């Protein structure tokens, strides 16, 4: 079945297409850990985990237009919250998730307040400050955090009735959290918060005039965003079973931001693509150049930005548009030309200007 036919029949098949697609994707996601080697499953788990933090970051950066270079630190706070709870208080794993989420939400709200006064670059640098400051702070409180040696904590073990291996169980836990995250983010965007965020990004003063409670929503966006970073951090502790301050350096924050931009800002698929980039491209880089993977990795980042300035998701959208135009073209040549659909009208200008009808005269209105 060619892509072209797929598109053409799409409208007819539309009614059952979406549920079917959802079903197949769900089935594939559930089947994955049974088919792939544990180390592949682990990689996918990490992709999902990074997708959670990137989805949160996307809320802030992509939709809100605010830059954070401190999400590695929120991630660390989530990870440490979980680790300390497991290590010092031996709570169960499940208890750590809401605590990490709530803690990071509040911390994010705290950051959101100064963020109200700061824009763009300055906010980025204040959050960067947080990312730089956190590791030495974690080292300072050695009796709680384990200092620079870090903490080793048990991973969640699969209940025996599942018959799952540890990596499969971790995968399903992460998958569940990631799915919930994506749903929550989607609903957030559809809610007043999302509309306010978009309004803020597009034009702050106009948003203010429109009566959007700008400051409130800005702070709230920061809080949500930090919360997802914390959730991902908690998952990290579950999956890796080890935290140490120097694992959460500024580099992590920069990598996260780069991953999101490479994946695609303000796009639903951006965080997933970005997470895959962060996870797999370093491997590609070291396969190409074992001695200095950084050389290749740096070049790959530049190359992606060069080829897809709006990120991989944008590239996918562009490719899809290209396919669609090609299909439309085929349709036009095969059948009688039909009146242009609205979708076509918003497309890029055609190479030849269409002949204009005579300008309307004044009597028109």
């Amino acid at each position, binding site marked *: 079945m060619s*892509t072209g036919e*797929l*598109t053409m029949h*799409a*409208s007819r*098949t*539309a009614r059952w*297409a*979406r549920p*079917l*697609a*959802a079903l*197949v*994707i769900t*089935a*594939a996601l559930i*089947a*994955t850990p*049974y*088919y*792939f*080697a*544990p*180390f*592949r499953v*682990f*990689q996918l788990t*990490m992709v999902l985990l990074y997708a959670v933090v990137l989805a949160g970051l996307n809320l802030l950066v992509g939709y809100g237009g605010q830059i954070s270079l401190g999400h590695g630190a929120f991630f660390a706070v989530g990870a440490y919250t979980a680790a300390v709870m497991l290590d010092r208080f031996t709570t169960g794993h499940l208890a750590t998730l809401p605590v990490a989420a709530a803690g990071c939400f509040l911390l994010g709200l705290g950051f959101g307040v100064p963020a109200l006064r700061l824009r763009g670059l300055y906010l980025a640098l204040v959050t960067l400050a947080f990312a730089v400051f956190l*590791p*030495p702070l974690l*080292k300072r409180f050695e009796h709680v955090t384990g*200092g*620079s*040696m*870090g903490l*080793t904590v048990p991973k969640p073990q699969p209940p025996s009735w599942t018959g799952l*291996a540890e990596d499969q169980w971790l995968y399903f836990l992460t998958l569940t959290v990631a799915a919930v995250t994506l749903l929550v983010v989607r609903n957030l965007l559809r809610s007043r918060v999302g509309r306010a965020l978009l309004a803020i990004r597009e034009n702050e003063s106009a948003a203010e005039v429109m009566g959007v409670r700008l400051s409130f929503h800005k702070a709230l966006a920061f809080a949500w965003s930090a919360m997802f970073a914390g959730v991902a951090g908690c998952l*990290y502790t579950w*999956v*890796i*079973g*080890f935290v*140490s301050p*120097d*694992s959460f*350096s*500024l*580099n992590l924050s920069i990598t996260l931001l780069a991953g999101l931009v490479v994946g695609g800002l303000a796009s639903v698929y951006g965080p997933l693509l970005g997470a895959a980039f962060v996870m797999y491209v*370093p491997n590609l*880089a*070291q396969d190409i150049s*074992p*001695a*200095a*993977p*950084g050389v290749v*990795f740096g070049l790959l980042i530049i190359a992606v930005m060069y080829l897809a300035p709006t990120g991989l998701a944008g590239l996918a959208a562009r490719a*899809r548009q290209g396919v*669609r135009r090609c299909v439309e073209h085929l349709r036009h040549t095969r059948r009688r030309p039909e009146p242009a659909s609205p*979708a076509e009208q918003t497309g890029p200008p055609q190479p030849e200007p269409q002949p204009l009808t005579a300008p309307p005269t004044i009597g028109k209105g």
Partner: protein
Amino acid sequence: MIRMRHTTALRAAAAGIAALLTATACSSQRGQDDSAASADGACKGQQTTGITDKSIKLGGIYPMSGPASAYGTISNGVSTYFKYVNAEKGGIGGRKVEFVVRDDGYQPPKAVEEARRLVEREKVFAVFQTLGTPSTSAVWDYLNQQKVPQPFVATGASKWGTDTEHPWTMGWQPNYVAESRMYADYLKKEKPKAKVAVLFQNDDFGKDLLGGFKQAVKGSDITVVAEESYEVTDPSVSAQMTSLARSEADVLLNITTPKFGSQALAADAKNPRWNPLHIVNSVSASTSVLKPVGFKNVQGVVSATYFKDPADPQWADDAEMKTYRAAMKKYAPDADPSIQFNAYGWAVASSLHKALDAMECPTREGLRDAVQKLKDVKVDMLLPGVALNTGANDRFPIETMQLVRFQGERWVLFGEPLDTRQKFGPVTG
């Protein structure tokens, strides 16, 4: 718009189906079960994954990228050793060594991923070297669960030796506590009333060494009068050095990694009012750290060492050093043989060679047991008088070091090699 969305959904569905089909086609990928190759005879039931009569496959995880890439070159020394042994000695016990190097960028999650890759996909016999305390800590649970040997990790944290729950993991280099004991012992003899100022890196390495030192000088008249830490992300330690100078201590213990080592040595040399006895720890004791400071500025600096510094002219005619240099030139022409990390890699690889030779069974269990029963094993790249020793209650292979003092253009050994275990007793957690 609506049509587009459906198209996307359908296409995603198609992709999902494709993924499923692919997965089914290679469903054997999942198999952990087929990895349990086992031996016959006396070694019956033991794991023989990654080892045959003709070959042995090892995997190492090093930071080839990221902030700690300086240490990545250790893998060059290790690889070169194995290439040399394969080509000129017929391998180890007739087995050609295949050494797979992976990069973790000094990030624990990446280290976990790479360890899994090495074990599950590459099916290595052993993970020979993970580098750094964080990465090693992140993977040792997994490797011990999988019963994969993790010999001679490239970190001096004492936890590798004091721990009892990870029999498959083993350190190699003198642990930081052992090293600090060398300095404590020296000061007790030379300056029994020393007032010590300490500059240390604020991580496991610095904390371990400082803690060990304080422990070792307990009960003596030696006191630590000032301590200043720095982060690896700090640009410079000069402010810390100014603070330490205020203490007017008569000994400076310099617990740093190379660049900061150079900075601290330079700051000490520049300060005309403060001239403490400068002790620099072995990580920064390479001649290549001292040279940029200027040899005339580092006369009399004291350190302790356990392997031969390739940048030091006194080993120029040493047989092993010649072999090493020739092999580096031949098998790793791009790497600089005078970098001490390369020699470190060579030394640790030849140590593993000895351990593999000592295996009773050519199995993972065999290697695990062999590294726990090393008796006076001599390794030519180590200093004369330093040997590998492990036993039921001793999980620290190297605990003997020797003091060196910088004179002219080289380190001069002085005193006798000191077995810190004999002198101070076993290191405890």
